[in-house]
């Protein structure tokens, strides 16, 4: 059975949820081979989890240089592995950086890049959802191994034991790939809540929330649901929350099970990032707000009345 290369995302020694989804999806196409590219020690920390989710092989490409240069070195390694393994497909999670890595890999190996798949079918064909979910497209690559980025929450991860045999990869990064040097990394996001990319429930606040301090109303609802906190651009631009929380066209694109919008009007750029969410709930004091066109359930009212009551009621139900 042909290998399927799966680019693994992890943080602080734990697999991202998206990695477990990818390993699950990979099994339908062939034999999952995890590809770990990062600083020394990255693979060892997640080896157990990779075995648990069915990785037969783990390609270990480790060097401090991956932390020092942007995107290009990772694409080089992935293309090099693709050349050696002759994989049936290459899978990555749909994050901005992974999409860049995937596209550059496809360019190098002469195949094609299928972005933001919501389903992976036979032979590496995919289903994509475009125009804000209005159209569903079935696509494949014309030749070569498809390089596919899979949207979070598209596949339910399920464990399956794999051998997780470690295969060291000799890393030699070309000078051309060292053009963009990362000289500093700044963390702005705080806290212990789930990340927007992974979350199955998201509670977002907009201009209607009114201040940084008032955002605790949004956080309170999020915490009772174990949800991630998101925001509109109006809220990030005002500096009430970090820009990493922005949902939308130029923020994060999400498709959780449940999206709750508090004091967000539903501008087209915001909708572009959340309109394929499974269930959408909105609270807005303006009955004409466009967010209600999307909402499965909407309440016309003051979020400062509705949201605390919602948090309390959920608390009660959870007992």
């Amino acid at each position, binding site marked *: 059975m042909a290998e399927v290369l799966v680019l693994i995302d992890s943080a602080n020694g734990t697999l991202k949820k998206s990695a477990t989804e990818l390993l699950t999806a990979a099994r339908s196409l062939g034999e999952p081979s995890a590809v770990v590219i990062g600083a020394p020690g990255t693979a060892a920390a997640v080896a157990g989890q990779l075995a648990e989710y069915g990785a037969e092989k783990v390609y270990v490409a480790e060097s401090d240089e991956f932390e020092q240069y942007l995107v290009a070195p990772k694409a080089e390694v992935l293309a090099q592995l693709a050349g050696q393994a002759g994989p049936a497909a290459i899978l990555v999670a749909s994050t901005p950086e992974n999409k860049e890595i995937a*596209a550059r890999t496809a360019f190098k190996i002469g195949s094609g890049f299928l972005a933001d798949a919501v389903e992976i079918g036979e032979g590496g064909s995919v289903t994509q959802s475009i125009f804000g979910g209005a159209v*569903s*497209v079935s*696509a494949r690559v014309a030749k*070569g191994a498809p390089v596919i980025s899979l949207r979070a929450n598209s596949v339910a991860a399920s464990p399956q034991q794999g051998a997780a045999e470690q295969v060291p990869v000799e890393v030699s990064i070309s000078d051309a790939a060292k053009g963009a040097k990362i000289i500093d990394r700044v963390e*702005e996001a705080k806290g212990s809540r789930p990340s927007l990319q992974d979350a199955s429930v998201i509670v977002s606040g907009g201009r209607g929330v009114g201040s940084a301090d008032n955002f605790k109303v949004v956080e309170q609802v999020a915490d009772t649901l174990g949800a991630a906190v998101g925001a509109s651009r109006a809220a990030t631009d005002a500096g009430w929350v970090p820009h990493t929380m922005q949902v939308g066209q130029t923020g994060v694109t999400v498709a959780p099970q449940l999206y709750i919008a508090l004091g967000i009007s539903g501008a087209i750029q915001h909708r572009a990032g959340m309109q394929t969410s499974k269930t959408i709930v909105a609270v807005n004091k303006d009955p004409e707000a466009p967010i209600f066109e999307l909402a*499965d359930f909407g309440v016309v009212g003051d979020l400062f009345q509705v949201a605390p009551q919602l948090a309390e009621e959920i608390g009660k139900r959870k007992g």
Partner: protein
Amino acid sequence: MNIVVLMKQVPDTYAERKLNPSDNTLDREASDAVINEIDEYAIEEGLRLKEAHGGEVTILTMGPDRATESIRKALSMGADKGVHVVDEALHGSCAITTAKVLAKALGTLEYDVVIAGLEATDSRLSVVPALVAEATGLPQLSGARKVTADGSTLSIERVTETGYDVVTASTPAVLSVVEKINDPRYPSFKGIMAAKSKPVQALSLADLGLAADEVGLAAATTVVDSFEEAPPRSAGTVVKDEGTGGSAIADYLASKKLV
């Protein structure tokens, strides 16, 4: 500092967008066409770099005939000239081909910085800038919310999932920008008048030394086999808060087994 801005003309996102059933490509005739919104930020950043460091701003677009309207608009904002890659055979080009063609066109120009937008609203790919870096072999500085130029060194703040990275490269380099970076100016009346006489060069495939079968639908690396319109979202329930709005939501979530 000479700057090339990669600008794409896209269907207006406020209008309905369609695929063409005959070849499963975007129907570019069906709706109004506008400058890809985020590319206006790329143009603005180009103009600011020019104002600070001198040089010229060139708008580079690959697209159908009518894309000249968008090039004129960019010129009316203050860009100096336009280059329009236009050829029937380009219809249906994939992202990788688009990047190859743009790289060829860049080869005809002199520049220190290439600036693109983060993402086109029609493709929603966010990969053409990275692919242009790949095709040209230049450093990739994508996702910038801030750009500074100091001599031949460019430095950006690249937005990440958890904050931002400071990334530097020597010129020439390929940048892409997010909307936090600036507020694009509106064309002035004077700018609109001046734009009429600014040069726009049309480049065909032959001009770039490319053959028709290297581009377009025939050479596309990805193929759309079929598409269908998703069933429209069924209209939801909207209630007015009479003091129990919060519990009404909780009831709804419980009925959907979401709590």
